[in-house]
């Protein structure tokens, strides 16, 4: 095969004519994110669109493009970076991706893409569509909420007599990957595990296998696929002097885990105590604001009217508002109820639970009690949020790097291993 010259972001590279653009870029050290591309599936699936680039002036996915002489590709222009980010954000918004509660966390391609692209929050509203989890297959569980419809399993998993085990069913936003119970039972143990591993998210789970071995470091924990991974905060506020700053913190519909993480920086906390003072915060037990603060840190989303009031107060009293943790960003674990009508949740909890006696209990309602909202809202849906720190909980280093950067305009550079969703 002949070598061709092609261009990525104005730089000249060489690759074999006809080779796939994703591979050719990778060989030349340029990372083009992709979630559905498998080298051996031909023609490529082109379903996830994450590898969209500007190719000879037109938007096209890199995975369906082969190298030709003089090909001009834009990969890392601000526009393309933003567009690819948007596509991965869409997947997060479309499914219910609760990383902390997912078996695949740490080995999940989707999560990995999130890290690589530095997605701390999605710009899109989470859709919270109610999709049932299919427990009927003998060996597997299909968690449809996690499926990104990449089609890998549909194209790759066959029984020994050549029948498909997985297939798309329905259409439009109802599309999901159905599993054939009869064929699934015919798969060998190793074939089933292969299907689980092939899934880029935690949608295909093999019973008894997904957590069979204890995990230490996971595939996507430590190292980035990009040679120059750098995650920085843009639009840094210019606050130069080193006066002592005031911080307020609060936990709304959260578990205080993020607060615990804040305390987890060991002896560095002594330095911090010299640099900042805490106003309203569970750490000081000050219940109401006594002054305006430089920075407000919010953990947890809004599940009741009291949360909303508190959050609004924070917005009012703090110059910069940072939300930390998955719950504050988009609802997180409490938002698991968002796919279920509130009435069902309340009645299950208070009226029909195993421990409640028929007709004895009521759903609590009192003028002194906050009112429960129809669903859990991310903070960003109630007030403008300036910065988000992902994680469940975020690593202490991540939290304090952000705080220091925001308060004193310090350089901020986050390590790949510090940027996590779980």
């Amino acid at each position, binding site marked *: 095969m002949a070598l061709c010259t092609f261009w990525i972001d104005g730089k000249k590279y060489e690759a074999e004519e006809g080779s796939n653009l994703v591979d050719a870029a990778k060989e030349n050290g340029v990372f083009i994110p992709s979630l559905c591309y498998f080298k051996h599936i031909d*023609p*490529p699936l*082109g*379903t*996830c*669109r994450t590898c*969209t680039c500007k190719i000879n002036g037109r*938007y096209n*996915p890199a995975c*369906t493009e082969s190298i030709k002489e003089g090909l001009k590709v834009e990969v890392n222009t601000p526009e393309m970076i933003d*567009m690819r980010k*948007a*596509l991965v954000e*869409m*997947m997060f918004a*479309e499914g219910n991706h609760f990383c902390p509660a997912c078996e695949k966390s740490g080995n999940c391609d989707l999560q990995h893409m999130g890290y690589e692209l530095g997605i701390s929050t999605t*710009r*899109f*509203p989470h*859709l919270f*569509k109610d999709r049932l989890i299919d427990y009927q297959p003998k060996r597997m569980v299909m968690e449809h909420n996690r499926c*990104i*419809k990449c*089609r890998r399993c549909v194209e790759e998993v066959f029984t020994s007599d050549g*029948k*498909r*085990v*997985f*297939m*798309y*069913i*329905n*259409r*439009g*936003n*109802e*599309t999901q990957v*159905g*599993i*054939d119970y*009869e*064929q699934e039972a015919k798969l060998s143990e190793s074939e089933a595990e292969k299907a689980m591993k092939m899934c880029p998210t935690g949608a295909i789970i093999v019973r008894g296998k997904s957590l069979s071995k204890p995990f230490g470091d996971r595939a996507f924990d430590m190292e980035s696929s990009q040679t120059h991974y750098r995650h920085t905060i843009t639009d840094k506020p210019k606050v130069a002097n080193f006066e002592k700053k005031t911080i307020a913190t609060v936990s709304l519909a959260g578990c205080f885990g993020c607060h615990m993480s804040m305390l987890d920086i060991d002896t560095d906390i002594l330095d911090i105590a010299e640099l900042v003072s805490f106003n309203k915060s569970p750490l000081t037990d000050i219940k109401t604001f006594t002054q305006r603060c430089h920075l407000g840190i919010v953990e947890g989303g809004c599940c009741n*009217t009291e949360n*909303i009031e508190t959050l*609004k107060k924070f*917005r009012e009293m703090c110059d910069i508002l940072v939300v930390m943790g998955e719950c504050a960003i988009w609802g997180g674990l409490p938002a698991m109820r968002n796919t279920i009508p*509130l*009435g069902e949740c*309340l009645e299950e909890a208070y009226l029909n639970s195993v421990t409640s006696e028929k007709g004895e209990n*009521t759903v609590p*309602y009192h003028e002194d009690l906050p*009112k429960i*909202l*129809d*669903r859990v809202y991310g903070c*960003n*849906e*109630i*007030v*403008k949020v300036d910065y988000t720190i992902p994680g469940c909980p975020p690593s202490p280093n991540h939290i304090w790097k952000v705080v220091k950067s925001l308060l004193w305009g310090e350089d901020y550079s986050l390590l790949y291993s510090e940027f996590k969703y779980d």
Partner: protein
Amino acid sequence: MGTYSSQKKHFSVEPVRSHLLSELWQHQLQEGFVSEESIKKLSELHQLSEIEVEGVASFYHFFHKQPAGKHTIYINNSIISELKGYERIKETFERETGAHLNSVDASGTFGLYETPCIGLSDQEPAALIDFYPFTNLNALKVKEIIQKLKQGKSPEDICDQPQDNIRYTPVNNRTVFFAPYTRGEAIKKLAGLGPDGVIEQLRISELAGRGGAFFPTGKKWDTCRSYKDTPKFIVCNADEGEPGTFKDRVLLNNQPGSVLEGMIVAGYTVGAQYGIIYLRGEYRWLVNKLETEIQAFHDTGLLGADAGGIKDFNFDIRVEVGAGAYVCGEETALLESLEGKRGEPRTKWFYPVEKGYLQLPTVVNNVETFAAVARLLQVGTFEYLKRGMPGSPGTKLISLSGDCKLPGIYEIEWGMTVAELLDQCGAEDPFFIQVSGPSGECISVKEKYRRISMLDLMAQKDIRCGGSFMIFNSHRDLVHILMNFSEFFKHESCGVCTPCRAGNFIIERKLERLNNGLADMNDLKELKSWGTIMKATSRCGLGKTASNAIIQSLEKFDDYFKARFSATDNSTYRKFDHSTAVEEYEHYKP
């Protein structure tokens, strides 16, 4: 279910898998749904896993997994139907049948469903009952229909015969499509022209694909002709799903002959043996008409062995009926559907002219294109070029509907302005016009002096019209119209690629915010930016065009949006509907 003539046999070159769609139809029509047993039977027949058959069945919304009633009613929920009284019709149907929307009544007699545009926008509100058309509905009429059905009358006997409503043809007998038609006149000319001659005629006449993409027809046929693989196929795309479009319906009803003849010409030119008309399920009531015409062609020797008296030219045509999936109007999705698969568009690795149906060279053209070819050969290129304007000769069929006195078909010469067209149809206080359907272009009445032609590739100056004009007056709620479009795309996306499947869903949520008065300028900006991302990254034309109307209306109706949504761009508080958020909880107030 009604009595339809059995669909014509598949060609012997087609593999059994290609029979799947019509087999699913048989089960649906005979049993009223596609049962688990049916799926099992078909999977055994085709040596497929059950999930694969279910995957195909569940893709098409006319196939039901649960019994859909002895009589299955589909009410059209397109925007035009909404303007013309969809809500009242729906309520009347619900009251009279006892079935709620998307369900079957207790006795199992009536199944009531909604479906996007059924191609009767000029006589809305309309519905299909057992796939027979019922038009110009009102509460009284619905009541009568249901009573008759309850008395045991068959929908076939009491259905309406949709009017063609041809409102305008070019003056001085310059019509191309609606001149008197005599069977076989175009075919007669083939022997004299030869394949090269036909392509030359198409080139001179600058005929371009009338489905809306305007790809030069001569070029497409010539390319297909150059491939040596055989057999080749001619596919007529009669999956006219774009809401507001019904020109193909009128052509197929008014003169199926010229469509068949166009296909035969194509077959002769590219060296194909087989023609397939992929008719949308909504037009099932036209199957008999088409098959009668095909039979007449056979009887007069225009189809079959030595078709049209041309030695060694064997050509046959059959009809395949779609089952409710807008995306199958996309040519590669259509081919997948013909192959008995889910109607998912292919990646553009190959074009159909090279590897189309069954990976064999295939010409896919729109109904109107085939009819135009036949008419063109019949009147002669010289005559044809006198119509229209330089660079854009000929005429175009436009399906016009909405707020006007005379909805129907307008055959215009290319070059007519929007203003003239609005004048002809008696548009009442036009304000917002959606051209070429929800995926097309939206224009403001301020642009009414733009010409309709195929000159302008990017449609900057002139308007390229794929076939429909939906007119909305100034009292119509723009956000409501956009929501109708976005809901349509959400359902009709094939679900394969992320930006279209998730994007349309997300856009709909955003429009809901607009509709509930919770949006500000920032939301509008986001809408536009998200729409642009969908446009750039979607896999096929559906996703690439689904946000057109939103992006364009935000640009063109700036005043409207500004007046409606506050300019709180950098507000620190998001608009939040407190009372709705606690409404459910308030039920527990003792």
